[in-house]
């Protein structure tokens, strides 16, 4: 089903690399380079068609840029490109249908819910592209392997990850004599005092995507490990997990209102924009949207990459990776595109208003696009040092995925916030996680 003709990516990589050396490594993906890039693209993809499916980016301007960017690539290379966008939570259903149908898009995108582990037998081996990119841009972040590799083989190519920092109101903190929060205790203290003044905080205790990320950030900062690095052994039944549950309950009791039980992914954005929130733990899309809907609040909103807990400082990111179905009829063009967009990461980061965080080490050279220019966001340039993904420190395996989609962690925190004992909650939660892992091992 895939293209029988050989893909000469090696030769094009070499010629590009040589050109980089000649042209000077300081030149980023300027238009000169992209023009030459196009000339190096294999002629055989000309006249073919490529279909790709992505998510609807949380920063709408990015999709506008991306669609234009892709069309230009298509014009340059002679490939007829079609780009479809879909809300990321619905992508798994669509992929299940495409897989069952044996047809659909060529190039697909996993966001947050990383399905590499589920579909790897039906995805094209992308080691050539990934290794090439790694060599070219200083290597991949260690965490990137979690989302894109299975058994050490690259079945996906990481694109960006989304980091979820702390957004806080400087004026409100100042009113209680606090400066920039550095630890989870700071956040707890601030919320506790500001709640009385009508400015509580909020983190979702519900069945939504952010709930999975936010509570894991707390957990990892308290030193909780979900599994060991192999992903096989469950380590979540620990003293640290109990501590984090205890802290979560305290944070709720002291600093939040019951409305957080009904929150969805967008509720904390609205909370911030309404002027009520003292701080939220959310991706910077909230930062950007508040700029539009409530400029007064925006003026006072600042960003901290993450706060520390007794177990360290860990920020939970949401990875986005590219993959190609084996049944695709145009694997070469898909690989070409992955190469192309990866070479233009700086432009993409700019277009995303700093939302997209790269996986390639060289892209962290300062100043980074957009983040380097915005004083409030500058600290995010070091985000890669703090980033962990779901399942940490293990990879994002299918059982880890199922734990995520059945919302076990948010449910555990909800139970304690509502008054259940830590013991009962641990027994339930750990039991459920063990059960899921056992089921996956059996098959």
């Amino acid at each position, binding site marked *: 089903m895939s293209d029988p003709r050989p893909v000469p990516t090696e030769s094009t990589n070499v010629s590009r690399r040589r050109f980089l050396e000649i042209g000077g490594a300081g030149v980023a993906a300027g238009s000169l380079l992209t023009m030459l890039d196009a000339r190096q693209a294999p002629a055989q993809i000309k006249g073919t068609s490529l279909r790709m*499916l992505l998510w*609807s*980016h*949380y920063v*709408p301007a990015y*999709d506008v840029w991306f669609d234009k960017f892709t069309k230009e690539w298509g014009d340059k290379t002679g490939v007829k490109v*079609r780009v*479809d*966008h*879909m*809300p*990321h939570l*619905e992508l798994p*259903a*669509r992929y*299940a*249908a*495409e897989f*069952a*149908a*044996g*047809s*659909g*898009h060529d190039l697909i995108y996993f966001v947050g819910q990383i399905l590499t582990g589920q579909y790897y037998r039906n995805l094209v081996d992308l080691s050539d592209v990934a290794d090439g990119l790694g060599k070219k841009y200083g290597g991949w972040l260690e965490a990137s392997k979690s989302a894109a590799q299975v058994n050490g083989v690259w079945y996906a190519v990481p694109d960006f990850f989304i980091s979820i920092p702390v957004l806080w109101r400087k004026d409100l903190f100042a009113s209680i004599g606090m400066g920039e929060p550095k630890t989870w205790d700071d956040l707890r203290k601030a919320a506790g005092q500001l709640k009385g003044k009508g400015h509580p905080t909020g983190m979702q205790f519900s069945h939504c995507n952010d709930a999975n990320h936010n509570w894991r950030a707390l957990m990892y900062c308290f030193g909780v490990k979900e599994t060991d690095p192999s992903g096989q052994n469950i380590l979540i039944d620990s003293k640290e997990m109990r501590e984090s549950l205890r802290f979560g309950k305290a944070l709720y009791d002291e600093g939040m209102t019951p409305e957080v039980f009904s929150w969805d*992914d*967008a509720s904390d*954005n*609205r909370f911030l*924009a*309404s*002027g*009520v929130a003292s701080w939220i733990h959310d991706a910077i*899309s*909230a930062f950007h*949207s508040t700029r*539009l*809907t*409530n400029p007064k609040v925006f003026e006072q909103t600042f960003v901290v990459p993450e706060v520390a807990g007794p177990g360290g400082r860990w920020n939970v990111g949401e990875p986005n990776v590219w993959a190609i179905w084996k049944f695709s009829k145009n694997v070469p063009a898909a690989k070409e595109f992955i190469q192309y967009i990866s070479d233009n990461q700086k432009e993409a980061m700019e277009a995303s208003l700093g939302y997209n965080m790269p996986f390639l080490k060289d892209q962290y050279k300062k100043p980074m696009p957009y983040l380097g220019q915005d004083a409030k966001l500058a600290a995010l340039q070091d985000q890669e040092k703090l980033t962990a993904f779901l399942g940490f420190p293990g990879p994002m395996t299918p059982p880890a995925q199922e734990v995520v989609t059945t919302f076990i962690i948010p449910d555990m925190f909800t139970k304690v916030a509502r008054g259940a004992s830590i013991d009962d909650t641990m027994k339930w939660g750990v039991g459920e996680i063990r059960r899921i892992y056992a089921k996956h091992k059996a098959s």
Partner: protein
Amino acid sequence: MATVIVAPRSHKSKELRRHTLIYLGLMPFLVLAVFPILWMAITAIKQDADLYLVDAVPFWFRQAPTWKNFDFLFHNTSYGDWIVNTMLISFWVSVITLLTAVPAGYALARLRLPFAENLGIGIFMTYLVPAIILFIPLARVVSTLDLQDSWWSLVIVYPTFTIPFCTWLLMGFFKTVPFEIEEAAMVDGCGQLGALLRVVLPVSWPGLITATIFSFTLSMQDFLYSLAFVSISDQKPVPLGVATELIRGDIYFWGSLMAGALLVGVPVAIVYNLFLDKFITGITGAAIK
């Protein structure tokens, strides 16, 4: 019924009292049904920032009302395409549904067939098979027919849930057609099929219309199938298009969402209501015969 000579004035006041009681009784239902619709309509012409003002009145405007949301709907999304798709899909689904459910309903209502009862129950049982599992093998069917990402895939799939319901509905309608009419036609040399086509169908046209309307509304309820089978923007039906393109992560374009819903829901309600009359008089008429 007792006949009493009533003075005109007290008759009028009786009418007034009757009307008042009815309106009072209807109030809760109207509030229940209409309050959300009214709110949706107002939201559709509100500016985005106006929605997020905590102390503002939801039923009035802090910032000037705007047609921007409708504008956005038609210029920044393929809403026009979506409406056309939805109408076309519903049309074809109704055609398929009528072509299959009318004969089936007639057969089950009129002809005493062995196993008919079980077949009827069997068709009904299909609703218990959950769509969240069905869509996977159906994806295979859709791709075999090469209809993936086209709204025609939905035309093939939607009858799976309109046919059972409409079969029952039409069965009910056909049962109320007096048998003498058919007899008369058959005596005239029509044959069973002729009787069906020439006599029964014309008389049951309220039932046919009702089945069509239900096909329409049932088709507009689906979300999962359209999500799984259609990803190209201009092939989407309204519910899918609105839900996938007017929500970007954590940004809900509430104004346009509400506008999108009302633009398609209200006309259907109006048409529905026009034929509701026929539906009811049709049944009543048939019953009185």
